């Protein structure tokens, strides 16, 4: 389990990084590496080059405003989780981050990296979707903002182009009077969830995001659905699958259980 050889670049400016990336035919961006390095070591991925962005200045900042939280590409999950201002402005972010792997992984892994990895079994992509956030992408030809609902194209597939670097993600603030909650069930604590649910309740509006029960991060509007119908209403938009850890039917059962629990918790938080 050792990676295949690759060319290594450690640029010190964003411009240099983007230029390098544009010049490589198959390159990967290395930030935290907590998902990428295992794939390299198992030789599931074998890019010709890695562009290590850890030496780029200015990407490790968390900017909190009344509008929301902007997270730089080098912000580690652990720092975002520990930030009291983030917790105040958008409590769903820390609520979900607490379920991302184990603390040691969170010390190195980056939230932006996790988002653009676009894994429907991961917590942060669906949180971004549910909150209607966005990702800022830079390339040698300019920058653009990709809204979450245009970001996730398929399993492990994001709208980020090979020559682009996601420089930050933006999580909109929680409106006054709204409430959020997150819960997931995994086989072992810290494992990928068998199913997970994030909920935002605001007035009559009830919206939920789902982890591990669809191919892409999926958000379902549950506004107006009676409590005993929440599970079925959600499942109509989801596609839980069988794998070695659980049957699709069991995952559906978890969706039913979790969505009720989490909606209730979010309502309590809103109150």
């Amino acid at each position: 389990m050792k990676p295949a050889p690759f060319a290594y670049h450690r640029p010190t400016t964003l411009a240099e990084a983007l230029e390098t990336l544009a010049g490589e035919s198959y390159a990967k961006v290395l930030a935290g590496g907590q998902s990428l390095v295992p794939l390299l070591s198992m030789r599931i991925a074998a890019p010709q080059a890695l562009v290590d962005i850890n030496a780029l200045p200015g990407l490790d900042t968390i900017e909190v405003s009344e509008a929301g939280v902007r997270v730089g590409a080098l912000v580690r999950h652990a720092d975002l989780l520990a930030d009291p201002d983030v917790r105040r402005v958008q409590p769903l972010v820390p609520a979900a981050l607490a379920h991302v792997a184990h603390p040691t992984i969170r010390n190195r892994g980056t939230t932006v990296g996790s988002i653009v990895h676009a894994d429907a079994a991961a917590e942060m992509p669906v949180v971004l979707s549910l909150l209607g956030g966005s990702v800022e992408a830079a390339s040698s030809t300019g920058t653009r903002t990709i809204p979450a609902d245009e970001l996730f194209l398929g399993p492990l597939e994001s709208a980020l182009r090979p020559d682009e670097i996601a420089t930050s993600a933006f999580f909109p603030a929680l409106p006054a009077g709204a409430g959020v909650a997150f819960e997931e069930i995994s086989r072992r604590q810290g494992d990928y969830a068998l199913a997970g649910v994030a909920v935002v309740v605001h007035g009559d509006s009830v919206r939920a995001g789902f982890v591990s029960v669809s191919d892409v991060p999926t958000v379902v509007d549950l506004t107006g659905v009676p409590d005993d119908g929440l599970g079925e209403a959600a499942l109509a938009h989801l596609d839980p699958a069988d794998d070695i850890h659980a049957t699709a039917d069991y995952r559906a059962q978890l969706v039913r259980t979790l969505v009720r629990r989490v909606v209730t918790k979010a309502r309590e938080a809103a109150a």
Partner: protein
Amino acid sequence: MTTKLMGQKVQRTEDQRFLRGQGRYVDDVHADPSTLHAAVLRSPHAHARIVDIDMSDVLDVEGVHLVWTHEDLGSLSPELAEPLPLLIPHPDLTQGRTQYALAREEVNYVGEAVAFVVAEDRYIAEDALDRIKVTWEVLPAVVGIEASRAAEHLVHEDVPDNVGARSEQNTGDVEAALARAPHRLQLELDIERSACTPLEGRGTVARWDADTNRLQVWTSTQTSTGVRAAIAVKLGLDLGQVDVITPDVGGGFGVKVMHPWPEELLVPAAARLLGRTVKFTEDRREHFISSAHERGQVQHIDVGFDDEGRIVGLDVMFWHDHGAYTPYGLIVPIITSTQLLGPYKPEVYRVVFESIYTNTVIVTPYRGAGRPQGCFAMERTMDKIAAYLGKDRTEVRAANFIQPDEFPFDQGLIFQDGRELEYDSGDYPASLEKLKKLIGWEEFPALREELAAQGRTVGIGLACYVEGTGVGPYEGAHVHIETSGKVKVATGLTTQGQGHATVFAQLVADELGVRFEDVEVVTGDTRRMPYAVGTFASRAAVMSGSAIHLAAKRAKEKALRIASDALEVDEADLEIVEGVVRVKGSPESRLDLGTIAVLSNPLRYAFDEASKAATQFAVGDPGKPPVAEDDEPGLEGKDFYSPQRATFASGMHAAIVETDPDTAEVTILKYAVVHDCGHLINPMIVEGQIHGGVAQGIGGALYERMAYDPSGQLLNASFMDFLMPYVTEIPDGIDIDHLETPSPLNPLGIKGAGEAGVIPVSAVVAAAIEDAEGFPITAMPISPSDLHTLRQEHTS
């Protein structure tokens, strides 16, 4: 006065190294850039014929030193091209098969070794593997017990019905017994595969010394003497040319008693050919697909019993999945079939098993070695009898116990060592009483009611086991007292975390009367003790512990004899305290052991102050030979311990579990253990062994299994998907109580403790879930998803 260390919670000496990062595990040996690294090309198919192997692209890779396939082996040594040894032959194993060090024409499991590369480092070696092109003719794979029994396809063309062995033992006419029993029940049970998965995988380092024409091998093994003999035979070397040193071993749990692994032969062969140090360090994926698994069995039980639940006839048939080859013989199913009886005495017992082939990784002992499955069969049967009769589960068990006055108790079967299954001692009723108290058996109904009122569902379960520990044939020990007074002890079996350096030093300090700090123990180094068997079957304390005790006694006898001459007093009047021999009652008349060591070795040459005293003009009676005819120089003791049969430890576990009505998650609220391994040498270490065993058992009951797909691909060959428990999955607190029924078979009255913790856990957890849910649990492990499925089946 020195206090006895036997029975004390002595802190471990080996920890000083481990805690500083100074342990020496096999991958730490020769960890320098001059060492070459090996990698193995493994079959991607569960069953396939090798049509062609094209290695033309490989040798171009810079840094590659060698590439071998089976074709290359014969020229290295004719024996190396032959199949690997069948280590433990048995007359019932009529269709035993073993693999080649590198596959010859056919592969029979995903992970089987096909080609071997040595390169500058492991990275380059893996690059080289990527360039080997094999043309395969893929054959149908046989995966799982059902497919193997159906025998629509064969694993080995020449093995009919995929049956490697069929074996039967009985203690009488079981059909007659069943016919006369007032009640009869049947059970169908299923246990899935799991594996030891020590944190350190396998690994081997070899160095050929051309100057002395000798091979030095470090390997992460549970049997250094076994590996040594195998290397000598397979590489065509004299035994005396091969040294095998077991460094610190990062966990074994059985998988490392299997030997020789292909790499244990290929690495030394490469080191010899290249004249360079060569290292193989198995990676985690390799460990899953090429190191041994265990546990997979399907069982059918037919039991007849009376109104009290006493078993009149017990008829067991089971199918044991031994994987693609049978290098370890029938040890695991034999243990299941014999140890299944536990603490009970059915009037008549018959057991038949078939050990069958599948296109999966080989099966060799994993902690418990077939006992967890046997315990599962017996204890599920007990629970079913109790349910049928409407009796308390502990009552039915008590009705079947062998009583304390019935020892030694002969079960009328032949055990794994080829000897009678005769229990030496035990007190099962006393254990059960302790367990009931510890878990709160009588109070449980009230607890259940109280929690039910809160909408919570709980259940309680228990299971009992007897474990044959300390099987032969023998172990030996050598105790050497140096002229410094320090005591160097060697025993041949190996250590993989059990604290042998501590417990064996406790025994030596006690017997010899020396300070614990002055005793140093070496294990698993064939240079120090070439005669040994290995560490398995909870045998180290019983076998090497006894041998070390005896060897220390020999050394003590010699020390007292020399001191009695020197001090001119009767031996009976001498004692040894803190390394000093002194006359009882007049402690000023004394000689320290270092001085006695000097006196024991008449010298021609002096090299320090102490040795001056032993030179030829200083000591000795000129009228006698310096070393008497029946004596030898040096203050040493050596002895071997070889008991007639195994000693039988026992225990009982109980658990209270909670099941979530919505998510079917299972939480263990309380876990209790009563354990009887005779006298304890170091209770701290014994409890540590129990903790670890129980945790492994919980892994096996609720989390771990090998998920093969029908084509024989292992779908969870990583720690991401093979769910070894973290602390968060293990109960916070395991309550332990000890009973100490000494064994009459060895001088210390001890029994083995290593495997016990794991044996009954699946049976206990299944019983508790069954009690909570109200429907039978017949297959383990059980995940929340499985439990959910069962709920659906039982409500529809």
